[in-house]
C-alpha cells in the first residue's frame, strides 16, 4: 500500500501541510505515550493505603498539586507552541499573493465546471472535471457554486476549500512534477456526492500550452459519415438543452461543455474512465451508472447511440 496522499505531497503547499501533520502527530504521539506510562504506573503500583478512605496526607496532596499544576502549565506552553507552528504554516500557505494561472471552478450537483478566463471570449477555456496546470507555476483557483455547497480537495496538492453559492473562495497551489492527481468533493452535496471526482493533470509548460490551444479551438467537424449522423442525432435530441458544443446550435449550460469531451480522461465526474464503451453505457443508461444524476435517460435507437458515440469520441 502506498503512503497516504496527504503525507506524500506533490507540491510545496501540500508539503508544508504534510510537515505540519508530521510534527503534530509526532508530538501528540509522544504526549500520549507519556500519559499512558503515567497511567500504567498509577494502576500497577502497589502501596499501603489506610483503612479510612478519608485519611489522606495533606503534605503529599500538596506535592501532587504542584506536579499537576506544573503539568497544566506545560500543557499550556505546548499548545501555545503548536499554535505558533500552525500560524507559520498558515502564513506560508494562505499568504501567497497573485498566481500565474487563474482558474474558475464552479460546483454543480454533481460535477465541476472549469473555466480558464481570458479577456477575449474566444480564448476562454471551458471544460469539466479536470484541471490542467503547468508544473512549477502558482495556480490560483476561484471557487464558487451554482447550487449547494461543495468542497475542492486534491490531497496530493492542497487541502480543501469550500465552493459556496453567493461567495467566492480562493485556493492557491503549485504542482512540483508532472502527474495526474485525484481528488473528490469533500462536502456532502446530495445524492451523488460520492461520484464527484476531480483530476488535476500537471504537465510541463509546452504540453500545457498545447492543451490550452486545443481547448480554445473550435469543435472538430465530423470526419466520417457516421460522425456526421451522430452530430445530427445530438442536435435533434434533448442533449442540446443541457450541453454546449461550440460552433453548433447546442448551447445548453446545465451540463458540462462537450466541445472537447474526448480530450478528457473520465466521464460523469470520475464515475468511469472515458472509453468508447463507458461513454456508450453512460448515454444509454446514466441512472444505472450514477443513480440520481441529473442526466436523463435518452430513448435513443441503437444506431443513433452508435453514431452519437462516434461523434463525441471525435471531439478531441
Amino acid at each position: 500500500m502506498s503512503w497516504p496522499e496527504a503525507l506524500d505531497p506533490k507540491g510545496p503547499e501540500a508539503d508544508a501541510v504534510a510537515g505540519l501533520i508530521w510534527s503534530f502527530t509526532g508530538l501528540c504521539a509522544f504526549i500520549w505515550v507519556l500519559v499512558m506510562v503515567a497511567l500504567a504506573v498509577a494502576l500497577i503500583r502497589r502501596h499501603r493505603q489506610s483503612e479510612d478512605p478519608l485519611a489522606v496526607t495533606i503534605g503529599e496532596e500538596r506535592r501532587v498539586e504542584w506536579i499537576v499544576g506544573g503539568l497544566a502549565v506545560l500543557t499550556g506552553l505546548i499548545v501555545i507552541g503548536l499554535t505558533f507552528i500552525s500560524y507559520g504554516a498558515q502564513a506560508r500557505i494562505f499568504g501567497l499573493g497573485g498566481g500565474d494561472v487563474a482558474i474558475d471552478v464552479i460546483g454543480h450537483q454533481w460535477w465541476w465546471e472549469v473555466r480558464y478566463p481570458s479577456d477575449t471570449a474566444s480564448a476562454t477555456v471551458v471544460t469539466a472535471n479536470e484541471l490542467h496546470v503547468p508544473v512549477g507555476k502558482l495556480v490560483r483557483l476561484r471557487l464558487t457554486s451554482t447550487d449547494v455547497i461543495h468542497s475542492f480537495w486534491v490531497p496530493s496538492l492542497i487541502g480543501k476549500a469550500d465552493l459556496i453559492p453567493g461567495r467566492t473562495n480562493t485556493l492557491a497551489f503549485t504542482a512540483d512534477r508532472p502527474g495526474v492527481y485525484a481528488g473528490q468533493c469533500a462536502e456532502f452535496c446530495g445524492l451523488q456526492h460520492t461520484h464527484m471526482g476531480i483530476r488535476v493533470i500537471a504537465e510541463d509548460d509546452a504540453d500545457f500550452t498545447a492543451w490550452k490551444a486545443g481547448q480554445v479551438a473550435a469543435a472538430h467537424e465530423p470526419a466520417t459519415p457516421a460522425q456526421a449522423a451522430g452530430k445530427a442525432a445530438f442536435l435533434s435530441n434533448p442533449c442540446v438543452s443541457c450541453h454546449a458544443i461550440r460552433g453548433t446550435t447546442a448551447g445548453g449550460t446545465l451540463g458540462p461543455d462537450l466541445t472537447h469531451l474526448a480530450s478528457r480522461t473520465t466521464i460523469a465526474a470520475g464515475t468511469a474512465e472515458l472509453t468508447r464503451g463507458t461513454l456508450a453505457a453512460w448515454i444509454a443508461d446514466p441512472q444505472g451508472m450514477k443513480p440520481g444524476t441529473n442526466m436523463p435517460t435518452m430513448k435513443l435507437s441503437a444506431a443513433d447511440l452508435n453514431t452519437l458515440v462516434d461523434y463525441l469520441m471525435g471531439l478531441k
Partner: protein
Amino acid sequence: MTLQGFTSAQANTDRGPRDIGQPIEEVRARLSQTWASQGGLWGWLTTVDHKIIGRRYIITAFVFLLLGGVLAAVMRAQLARPESGLISPDLYNQLFTMHGTTMMFLFAVPVMEAFAVYLVPLMVGTRNIAFPRLNAFSFYVYLFGGLMIWIAFALNIGPDIGWFAYVPLAGPEFSPGKRADIWAQMITFTEVAALATSVEIVVTVFKQRAPGMTLDRIPLFVWTQVVTAFMVIFAMPAVMTSSTLLILDRLVGTHFYNPAEGGDALLWQHLFWFFGHPEVYIIFIPATGMVSEIITTFTRRPVFGYLFLVLALIAVGFLSFGLWVHHMFVTGIAELGASYFTASSMLIAVPNGIQIFCWIATLWGGRPKFKTPLLFVIGFLIIFVLGGLTGVMLASVPLDTQVHDSYFVVAHFHYVLIGGAVFPLLGGVYYWFPKLTGRMLSERLGQWNFALAFVGFNVAFFPMHILGLAGMPRRIYTYPEASGWGTLNMIASIGAVVFALSFVLFLWNVMASLKRGAVAGDNPWDAPTLEWATTSPPPPQNFDRVPIVTSRYPLWRHPDTLPVGTGLALDTREIVLTTVVEGRADVRVTSPNPDIWPFITAVVVGVTFIGSIFNGWVALVGLVPIGIGLIGWGWPSGSVEDES
C-alpha cells in the same frame, strides 16, 4: 447529631402530621404511600417520580443507541468492500443522517440527562426533582420526537441531509418533500425536552440539596450536570433559531439562507456550530462526572484536586462556546478570525488536560480495584486522550484543510464521543445498575464486554485516521477499487463487528442480571455519595429522613449512621429547600402529586409540531389546545402557602 428538626411549634399543620421521631418503620410506610405513583396505565401516564421517568429516559435512550448502532453496522457492511452494491445511495444518505441524528440528539444528550434525572435528586439527598411534572412532560416530548423521525425513516421519508443539515442542500430548492422538515422538527422536540430537563437540574441542585451540602460538598457528577445544564440553556437557543429559520425558509417561503435573495448559506453553519460545539461538551462533561465518581469509589480515596476539577469543568463550559468556527475552517473565513479560533481550540486542551492529570493522580494515590466500571474508565482514558490529541491537530487551520470532512475527522469524533462518553457511560451503567435495579451485573460478562468493546472500537476506528489522510471523504456510499482504501475499510468493518458483539454481550448481561443477578444491598461498592445511603432500588420517597451532610463523602465520613433530619410532613409530599451557597435549610415546600396534564400537554404539543410540517396554520391553531393543557396543568390544587 443524628436528629435535627425541620419544624417548629408554630408549623402550619394543614399538611397533616409530621415526622417528629416516630419509629422509622412507621415513617417509611407512610411516606412510601404518600410518594407512591398510582398503578396501572393511568399510573404509568401520571407518574411524576424522577426515578420512574429517569429509568424510562435511560431505557429509551439505549433503545435509540441500539437503533443507531444497527445503522452504523449496515454502513460498515456497505463500505467493507469497494464498489459494493449492497444498498442504494439514497438509503445510504438516510442511514448516515439517521445515525448521526439518532446518536447526537436521541441518544447521547438524552442519556446523560436521563442519568441526571435519575441520580441528581438522590445524590443531593432530596425526594424528587424540581418541577417533576415538567420532567414528565420533557420525557414524552423527547419520546414523540424520536418516534416521529424513526417512523418517518421506516416509511422511507427519513432525512437525507446529514446530521448538521447544511443549507442550501437542506433548503426548499434542493430538498423538496418532507424529509428535511421532519429532521428540523425533530430538533424542536428534543430541544424543548433538553431545555426543560436543564432547568429542573439547575433548580434541583441550587435549591434542593440536603442541608449541609455546601457548594464544595457537591458530588462531582452533580457539578458536571449543573455545568451541562447551563450549557444547554445557552447553546440550545442557537440551534432552535437555526432550525426555526430553516423551517420558515421551507414552509413559509422566507429567504434567510438563500443567497440569491440576499440570505446567507454560512449563517446556518455559524448558528448550528455555535450550538454544535458546546453540544459535544454537553455530552462529554456529564461523562467526566461519571469518571470522577467511579475513580473515587474504586480507588477508595477522595478524588484528587476536587477544586481543580470543578474549575476545569466550568472553564471547559465557557471555552466551548468560543470554538465553533473550527468546524468552518475551509469555508473561506477571514484569516485573522480563523487564527483566533485556532488559539481558542488549542486552549481547551488545558482544562481537559488538568482533568486527566487529576484522575491519574487519584489512581496513583489510591489502590485501584479493577471492577468493570473502572475498566471502562481506564478504556476511556486511553481512547479519549488519543481523541483529544487529534482534536488539537484539527485546531490548526492548515492541518484541518487536509483532514476536514475526511475519515480522519470521523475517527477523531468517534474517539472523543465513544471514548469520551460511551465508555464512561457503560462504566456508569455497571456502577449504578445495582442502585437502579437492586441487582449486580455479572462481573465476568462485564470484563468480556469491556475487552470486546475496547478491541473492537480501536480496530474499527483507528484505521479511519489513515483513510482520511489517504483522501477518503466522509459520507460517500462507495469508493473505487483503484483508491486503495479497500483493506483499511475491511479492517474497520471487522472491528465494527467485534464492537457490535460487545453490545450484544452488554444487553445479555443486563437481561440476565435483572433476573438472576446477585442482590446488591444498599451500597455494594462502599461508595461515598448519598445515592448509596438508601435502598436499592430506592423507595418512592428516596430517603425516609433527609440526610444532613457534613462532608463531601458522607458515607465514608459516617460509615455507621448517617445524620438525618426530621420534621417533614408524612401524608403530604413535602421537601426541604436550602440556600444556594451554604445549603442551610430554608423553606419546606410541597412537591406535586401525580398528574395527567403533562402527558396531555405533551400530546397536543407533539401533534402541533408534527401537524405544522404539513400545514403552517397548525402552529397557530395548536396554540389553543396547548393553552388548555397549560391551564389544566397550572390549575390551583389548593395547597397551602410555603412556610419558612
